[in-house]
């Protein structure tokens, strides 16, 4: 099934260094120490994400999927184990701006216009005015918000705000996108439209994506691979190769293969044996 994989080369400004995976997580534990003692958020997690690969992390609340994403982003540090991003430490990758990130809340700065929000990372990293203007125009075009460049976030709907946040996360052509339930607060209609847009955008940019979600159909529609996690302690318990191809449009949502993959992920989540279907799941327990 490898021919279904996205083979768009990374369009990032720096060449991929020696075929390192986009993300390599090895033997990672994360323990939070609170007032009521210790909580093991992640237990012995291993994960490899290839360049250009779209991987979703799915699981119930408390399974550590967001924690795992935060560790990859170096917003938090693992208690044990190693995390590499393009062969570097997570910290180095953050300092080198190797990834773009989007959260469940758009997190736009309310006192900045849409254009000023999108250009924020470019401005912080010293890009000159002409470069910023050109890039912002490109990005707003990509997310279909060109005519809202001068608007302020509170004049936009939730879906539009999230599109601005995605444009911002793409500002510096990252080869890796980290997304923590970016569509979690949107209504179902907007959500499906955003998913289609994300598929188009990632196939245009060729970036690898780690995508955290609660939604099985969302994970199946977007991903090459769905990684299933369970709580107490948070760990990876299964994964489903989806690979529904590059041509993912609205028809796919009613396709036999789509339903088969949804079933496979659901069964991986509930720990039942997977039947022989189009998509194949692997139990990693």
């Amino acid at each position, binding site marked *: 099934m490898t021919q279904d994989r996205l083979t768009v080369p990374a369009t990032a400004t720096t060449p991929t260094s020696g075929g390192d995976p986009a993300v390599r997580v090895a033997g990672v534990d994360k323990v939070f120490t609170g007032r009521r003692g210790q909580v093991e958020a992640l237990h012995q997690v291993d994960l490899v994400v290839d360049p250009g690969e779209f991987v979703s992390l799915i699981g119930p609340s408390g399974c550590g999927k967001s924690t795992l994403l935060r560790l990859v982003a170096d*917003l938090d540090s693992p208690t044990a184990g190693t995390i590499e991003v393009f062969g570097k430490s997570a910290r180095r990758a953050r300092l080198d701006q190797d990834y773009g*990130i989007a*959260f469940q809340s758009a997190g736009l700065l309310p*006192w900045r216009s849409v254009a000023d929000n999108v250009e924020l990372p470019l401005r*912080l990293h010293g890009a000159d005015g002409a470069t910023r203007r050109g890039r912002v125009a490109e990005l707003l075009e990509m997310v279909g918000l060109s005519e809202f460049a001068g608007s302020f976030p509170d004049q936009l709907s939730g879906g539009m705000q999230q599109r601005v946040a995605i444009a911002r996360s793409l500002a510096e052509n990252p080869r890796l996108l980290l997304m923590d339930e970016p569509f979690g607060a949107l209504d179902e209609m907007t959500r499906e439209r955003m998913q289609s847009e994300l598929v188009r955008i990632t196939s245009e940019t060729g970036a690898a994506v780690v995508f955290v979600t609660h939604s099985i159909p969302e994970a199946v529609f977007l991903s090459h691979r769905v990684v299933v996690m369970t709580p107490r302690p948070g760990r990876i318990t299964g994964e489903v190769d989806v690979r529904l191809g590059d041509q993912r449009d609205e028809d796919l949502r009613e396709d036999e293969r789509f339903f088969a993959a949804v079933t496979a992920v659901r069964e991986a989540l509930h720990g039942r044996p997977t039947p022989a279907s189009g998509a194949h799941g692997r139990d990693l327990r």
Partner: protein
Amino acid sequence: MRGTAVRVGAPLLLGVLALAGWEVLVRGAALPAYLLPPPTEILGQIRAIWDGLVDATRATGTNALVGLVVGALLAVVTAAVAARVTWLDQMVAPLVAAAAVVPIVALAPVLSNMFGATSETPRRVIVALVVFVPVFLNTLRGLRQVSPVHRDLMRSYAATPWQVTRTVTLPGAVPFIFTGLNIASSLAVISAVVAEYFGGLQNGLGSRIASAAAQSGYARAWAYVAASIALGLLFYGFTLLLERAATRRHTG
């Protein structure tokens, strides 16, 4: 616009009615002037001493303005540093609490002695001290309101502390700074007036109110009171306008 007419007209009408009621009450009950002079008499006084009134208002207004600007700037800068440096915050917090509970006008006679009776400085220092507290507390609260998602975002951008302050923390604190300034603007005028009750130069509204009352010039005293009210409203209105100008961009 009917809405605007009602919004402006209604309080205006209430004010006129209250003044008319005051006039009728004072004249009807034949109240003695030291108790309450009628509005017409106060208005007459305002006309009679107009130039002196303007001079006194200008003197007090200057003290209030200088104290307000100095106190507010000092407060914003101190809060910005305190928000970043924990030990400084812990050091300053009890001092600010002390400044908040001491009736600062009680310092007026002491400061008057310190700077001499011919100086405006003690009054300006008092205003600055009074202004400092609300601006400092509100600014500090605003600076601490940074949302977790913005903090994460700035960390993901590997932003320097100064970049974080400039792009996220300070702009986010602007509405809080203005809340502090709105409180401070009226306090500035009040404390500038009250500080004059404790001797020193006889050029401002506070000293004129005190001396007019001492000389049984009740309507004159009230004329100066009216001028202090006008001055207070001017300061308050100005900070409101400033706030609107500064935040208009945010809400579009």
